[in-house]
């Protein structure tokens, strides 16, 4: 089959690779009908993710049609149309039972790698390095889905691929970011970063009852999308001092909740081969967590800072003193996909939101190398790329 493969920093190729096969009893094989490039795929593209290997199949936002199921999978049948969550969860461990699906104990075959880095391992992920399991991703014609009796969500034919595809990651991720804000009537929510996750965080903040939503970015097309589609008040940080502006907009009190949808290049090491990369992270860390520092600084006393943006390593000059002095609550982590997907499918079916508003580029799988570049450089007003196998 054809698949989008990593071959090194800024070296993405579409290769012929073997078709996936059922390996475990609860597996399913899905024929991909639509797949997207995620902002976090750009961290891989930039060569920042440790334990990526040449030939790894990329992609963790995908959907399609079930073509084969394992013998112990009694939930899916051939022909089902499904969206697959980017986190892989067993459904039976303590964390799955407690609805903390992205922290599943049993889905990462290489848990020892993540344990060396973080103390404990979170769930396995599709197409996102060997430290997260080494699972081939879904930017391909077919994908093997482990624990497919708990992950994939069946979607009705009345909805198009583009309306449901983003249930695989960015819509639930934006929604959980807003839910973590514990929004109460009258609240103002400020969102740093108007990429796809930021756009869904804006939409979700409205759904969860925010009175005002402020969006912060520097790309005009993204601010325009936040204003026109997201109905947010917008701040271009290239033109205004965000801290001053937020203070003025909120009568000197500050936003009740702040969302960092920017993140940092994911990183880390304990194995000595990764150590040099960690030092690189330290260098970047003096520069890149600017959005998070600003969010902590701008947030009102007793407010919430919610972090859907990806962080991986050690942060330099993290203003914990400000967070402590103001009694802030910090909420973060990978999205508990399995919990949010059914709720948000319901929202889409009811017409509360049509997630396809985010799509700017529709291409085939063969265009992947060019589109990674376009997306990374934010050329051609690129916000979201959807690819289909040709």
């Amino acid at each position, binding site marked *: 089959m054809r698949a989008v493969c990593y071959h090194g920093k800024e070296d993405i190729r579409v290769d012929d690779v073997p078709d996936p096969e059922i390996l*475990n*009893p*609860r597996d399913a094989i899905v024929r991909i009908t639509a797949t997207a490039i995620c902002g976090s795929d750009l961290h891989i593209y930039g060569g920042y993710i440790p334990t990526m*290997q040449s*030939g790894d199949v990329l992609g963790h936002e995908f959907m399609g049609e079930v073509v084969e199921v394992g013998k112990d999978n009694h939930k899916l049948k051939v022909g089902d149309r499904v969206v697959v969550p980017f986190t892989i969860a067993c459904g*039976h461990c303590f964390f799955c*039972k407690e609805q903390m699906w992205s922290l599943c104990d049993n889905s990462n075959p290489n848990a020892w790698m993540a344990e060396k880095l973080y103390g404990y391992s979170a769930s396995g992920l599709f197409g996102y390095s*060997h430290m997260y399991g080494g*699972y081939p991703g879904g930017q391909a014609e077919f994908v093997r889905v482990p624990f497919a009796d708990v992950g994939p969500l069946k979607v009705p034919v009345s909805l198009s691929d583009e309306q449901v595809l983003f249930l695989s990651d960015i819509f639930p991720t934006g929604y959980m970011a807003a839910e973590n804000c514990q929004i109460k009537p009258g609240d103002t929510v400020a969102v740093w970063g108007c990429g796809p996750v930021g756009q869904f965080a804006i939409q979700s903040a409205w759904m969860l009852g925010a009175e005002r939503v402020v969006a912060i970015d520097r790309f005009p097309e993204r601010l325009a999308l936040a204003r026109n589609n997201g109905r947010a008040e917008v701040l271009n940080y290239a033109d205004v001092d965000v801290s001053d502006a937020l203070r003025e907009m909120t009568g000197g009190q500050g936003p009740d909740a702040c969302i960092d949808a920017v993140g940092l290049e994911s990183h880390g090491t304990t194995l000595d081969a990764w150590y040099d990369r960690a030092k690189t992270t330290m260098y970047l860390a003096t520069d890149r967590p600017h959005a998070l520092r600003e969010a902590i600084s701008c947030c009102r006393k007793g407010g919430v800072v919610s972090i859907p943006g990806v962080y991986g390593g050690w942060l330099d000059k993290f203003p914990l003193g400000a967070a402590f002095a103001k009694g802030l609550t910090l909420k973060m982590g990978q999205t508990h996909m399995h919990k949010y997907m059914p709720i948000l499918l319901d929202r889409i079916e009811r017409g509360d939101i049509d997630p396809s508003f985010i799509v700017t580029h529709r291409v085939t799988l063969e265009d992947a190398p060019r589109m990674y570049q376009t997306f990374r450089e934010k050329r051609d007003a690129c916000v979201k790329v959807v690819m289909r196998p040709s």
Partner: protein
Amino acid sequence: MKIADYSISDADRIGSLAAGTVLVAYGLSRRSAGGVWLAAAAAPFVYRGIVGDWPRPNGMGVRGDTRTALAGGRGVHVRESIRLEMPIDEVYRFWRRLENLPRFMSHLASVTDLGNGRSHWVARGPANLKVEWDAEIINDVANKVIGWRSLPGSDIVTAGSVTFSNARSAQSTQVSVNLQYEPPAGRAGSFVAIVAGREPSQTIREDLRRVKQVLEAGEVPRATPQATAERAS
């Protein structure tokens, strides 16, 4: 570790340590099979530099008796524990059926129940060496503990226990493994195993992770091998 009896001179010891360390570091830095062999070959020099004697098997002449071979600080001692979302009796029953153990203990080829609390164990050691031993269960309290020791005449001298206890208001079960063994090549054997990347507590830890995966998820997670074979594990 017994040191005093065969002390060598400080100069000799420092020389051994320096030469051994350089060779081990060089060997490992090669990241190749040859490099690992070089490191393994040089490891006894490091041992000699630290301990003051060449590594030699413990308890020579009394091999086979667990009380002698594993008394005091002798042998390798490993403790690891894990928590499962399963009723305690199910976890105990799974473990008590010894034939199940190779399903999650990667170094075991087979365990055969010989009856009367006795069993025959076959393991694969370093360099695919086959290691066999007979063991007897010396303690068995349902849903609480299983204890065992190897019988005289075995390739390996080992004793251990696994205890089962309730956790989180009896919703979870905690399994603790306590394992002692004297490997065929004595303590230096495990030293070489550590240098070559197979540290015993990590092995037991991975075994416990697999028993949790088998019992909770019903399967051990596996990723489809990709174009480049897994190098790390």
